[in-house]
């Protein structure tokens, strides 16, 4: 030991000191409740910091419940917005000296209980039916856009023809220009849909938004559908657009069924007109 340099010797002594002290403190902590508590307080405070970080992961389990609450609130707010905008329209119409239309959209919240995205004709089933005021041909929307149309209704369940159904056609409108075309699913990718029959003179840029039609009786106007990815000219006559859907149909859980109070009347009117023209 005397052969070692002084500094090293001092270092060894220091290390020995620390080792012995560590043993002593470990003994102290392991064998006495109070000291254990005091040390654990410090350890716990570190733990708290750690837990705070990890709690964001554990909170994930509560997301479902939170989602549900938010969804119901959204439905309520959506109905409120629709009611108020109808009210506003009525006011405007009255000042213009015209008769006010009594129509308005209302929304029925529902939970998706069955869903598919991997077939050619995809359907969804929701947990609300005729008992809740749902009828065939009503539109279905989610927080992010169109979902589909009710096809069959039982007392407590309803079946929805998804937007992702190769048999079904919808009307889509380019928000910027107002040009409308037919929405059709090619049955391949559940994240993409095709908007076709857009007149070729319409200027379309990638990123343009596609929304629902203003003339629709099943969807409220200007419901978002998707974003244009690319466009191509078909047979030299019309444009075909590839549209990325806003809704993720794979994770769809909550939807709103749209009920339009003027639908029946409007239907009757168009039918009589058609009969007369025949």
């Amino acid at each position: 030991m005397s052969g070692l340099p002084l500094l090293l010797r001092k270092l060894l002594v220091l290390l020995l000191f620390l080792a012995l002290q560590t043993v002593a403190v470990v003994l102290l902590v392991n064998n006495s409740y109070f000291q254990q508590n005091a040390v654990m307080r410090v350890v716990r405070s570190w733990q708290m910091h750690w837990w705070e970080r990890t709690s964001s992961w554990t909170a994930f389990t509560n997301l479902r419940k939170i989602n549900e609450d938010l969804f119901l609130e959204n439905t309520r707010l959506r109905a409120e917005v629709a009611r108020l905008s109808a009210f506003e329209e009525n006011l405007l119409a009255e000042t213009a000296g015209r008769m006010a239309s009594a129509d308005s959209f209302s929304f029925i919240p529902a939970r998706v209980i069955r869903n598919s995205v991997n077939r050619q004709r995809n359907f969804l089933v929701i947990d609300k039916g005729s008992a809740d005021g749902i009828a065939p041909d009503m539109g279905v929307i989610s927080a992010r856009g169109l979902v589909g149309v009710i096809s069959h209704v039982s007392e407590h369940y309803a079946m929805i023809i998804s937007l992702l159904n190769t048999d079904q056609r919808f009307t889509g409108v380019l928000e910027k220009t107002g040009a409308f075309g037919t929405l059709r699913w090619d049955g391949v990718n559940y994240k993409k849909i095709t908007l076709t029959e857009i007149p070729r003179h319409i200027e379309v840029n990638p990123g343009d938004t596609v929304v629902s039609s203003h003339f629709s009786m099943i969807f409220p106007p200007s419901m978002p559908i998707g974003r244009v990815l690319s466009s191509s000219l078909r047979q030299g006559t019309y444009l075909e657009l590839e549209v990325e859907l806003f809704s993720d149909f794979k994770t769809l859980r909550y939807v709103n069924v749209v009920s339009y109070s003027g639908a029946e009347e409007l239907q009757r009117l168009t039918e009589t007109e058609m009969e007369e023209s025949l």
Partner: protein
Amino acid sequence: MNDNLKYILRFLFFLALQLLIFQNLNLGTYLAPMPYILFLMLFPCTYPAALLMLWAFAFGLALDLLGTGIMGLHTSSLVLVGALRNILMKTVTVKGDLDNHMVPGFSQFGFARYSIFISLCVMSHHLVFFALESLSLFLFWHTFARFLCSLLLNVFLILLFKKTFFERGR
């Protein structure tokens, strides 16, 4: 007499003294008699700090194991004294005072210096001892009073013991 044997005998003596007498002496909350610190003060001035710490550790551990106190409390504070003793000794003495096999004492250091030396050692011991025992700032003044009273008592006891039993003729 062989030095190591002497140390072992002293070890046993101080251990027995503490366990049989001072541990059982109830002087109230403020006075904790712990004259066993003198055990470390009787090693020669040039005794290596590492060995001193090992002696301190062994003694503290024995006291903790056999005594009624909190485990590790004596060990921890005594190891600190073992580590600090030589440094404190150099602080209180004039350079060149320390001979090879000299044992620190009244005649070697002088009464004042030796008392200061002992006080500093006991102080470092008691600081750790009472700090670890309370391990909180709750009742700080109470703990501080215990520290101060015990310090005075133990310095007195150690000086007394040293003078009575371990002071060789001049």
